[in-house]
């Protein structure tokens, strides 16, 4: 078939790579956003009031079970139209906010399972030794809760990276967008899309391996059989 052209394939590389810093930039920013917002969810979830707990749980569930693509559209197209609170965000900012919020609900759950994976006995020992509430969290619980969440957080970083191309639909000039625009200028998308696939594979596969290694390392550090269940 004459649809595949190696000439075009090699020509497309530099063009598409121009979008890589945008894709990676959005991923990192959105991830930081999600790390912070996840904390907010975690604390909201710990409010003992039943009704608040119910509302928070279902708001999280709502965000988590609706398509990020629609959420992006909402933030990009609808948000500016909302009176008073409406703000116009650039594609970059929209993607950061959109993915940040979407994934914060997952990350909040990871934090939660991290905290819950600390055995009850640790709380009891801390009480028996008469620690203050703050010291319990600071000295006993968090140092144990956080390390086992690191691999899961890493996994979500990669998952997020793979979702970011969705934002090309709101004009984010990441690699998928560059590929589309290369394709529309050259009237053929295959080489460009193949390149995008290769880029994702090359970046995400080794990172996933790295995280696996990290996981093994963390698991053998203390006598932990605590595994943070993936929640997807």
């Amino acid at each position, binding site marked *: 078939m004459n649809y595949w052209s190696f000439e075009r394939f090699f020509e497309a590389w530099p063009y598409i790579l121009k979008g890589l810093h945008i894709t990676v930039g959005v991923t990192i920013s959105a991830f930081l956003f999600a790390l912070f917002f996840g904390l907010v969810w975690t604390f909201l979830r710990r409010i003992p009031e039943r009704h608040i707990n119910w509302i928070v749980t279902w708001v999280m569930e709502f965000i988590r079970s609706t398509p990020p693509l629609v959420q992006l559209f909402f933030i990009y197209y609808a948000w500016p139209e909302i009176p008073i609170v409406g703000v116009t965000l650039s594609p970059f900012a929209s993607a950061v906010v959109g993915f940040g919020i979407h994934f914060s609900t997952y990350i909040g759950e990871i934090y939660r399972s991290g905290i819950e994976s600390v055995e009850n006995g640790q709380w009891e020992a801390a009480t028996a030794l008469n620690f203050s509430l703050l010291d319990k969290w600071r000295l006993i619980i968090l140092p144990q809760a956080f390390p086992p969440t690191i691999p899961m957080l890493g996994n979500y970083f990669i998952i997020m990276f793979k979702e970011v191309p969705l934002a090309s639909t*709101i*004009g984010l000039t990441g690699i998928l967008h560059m590929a*589309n625009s290369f*394709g*529309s200028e050259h*009237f053929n*998308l295959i080489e460009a899309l193949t390149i995008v696939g290769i880029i994702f594979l090359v970046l995400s596969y080794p990172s996933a391996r790295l995280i696996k290694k990290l996981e093994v390392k963390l698991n053998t550090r203390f006598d932990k059989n605590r595994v943070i269940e993936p929640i997807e």
Partner: protein
Amino acid sequence: GGDEESGSSLDALKEQGYVTVGFSNEAPYAYEEDGELKGAAYDIAAAVFNELGIEEVRGSLQDWGQLVPGVQAGQFDAITAGMAITPERAENVLFGEPEMTYGEGLVVEAGNPHDITSFEDIANNEDVTVIVMEGATGIEFLRQSGVSDDQITYAANIPDTFAAVQSGRADATTGTEMTMRMAFESANTEDLEFVESFEQPDVEGVPSYGAAAFSLENEALREAYNEALQTLKDNGTVQELLEENGFHPESNFPGADITTESIVNGDNY
């Protein structure tokens, strides 16, 4: 969808009873409203296919930039989006004969704060950004008028370009005159302004001639289409459909001497 690679033969289409056409939701060429496909290019194509004995025309909505790759990939049998014939595009698709002609249009923020009435005005004011639909001929016109690439941003379709200007992400948007006018009217907003005093750029490709397009492999379908199109031009159907869709006889009907070949070889480009 394209049930065979790069579009089906006429016989196969007749057999299956419908033809699938790609469009990009751009009034007044081809767009969907209340669940129905409308627009001049669509109406003409529908009439032509009827003439060829195919009753039903199904639409396949695409981002503008993906229309040509889409027809090549056989995702639909023809593009009926009033796509302007250009020599470059003609290397990648087969154009039918011209169905219409049009110039460019410009929409800016209400009150035209940057006082833009031509592409040169944009070129001369580095602060101004203009948003264009990806893959549109307007991009090339802007470049030829001296607008730098930094000033041009892209969106996938016309509604998105309007949304961008309306929300202040860009200062202006350009597209074909008919498109800009129709989109401006349907947007029905006080935030925007259609620049009546816009000066057409003096560059190759303006005015543009819109035509249906087919996959490079589908010469036979194009020939059949062209023949039926000529019949409908001769009996006045095409002109009627154009007028119904708001096109003016003086400014929007292509001259009889203008053919796809003359455009592609540069005589009329």
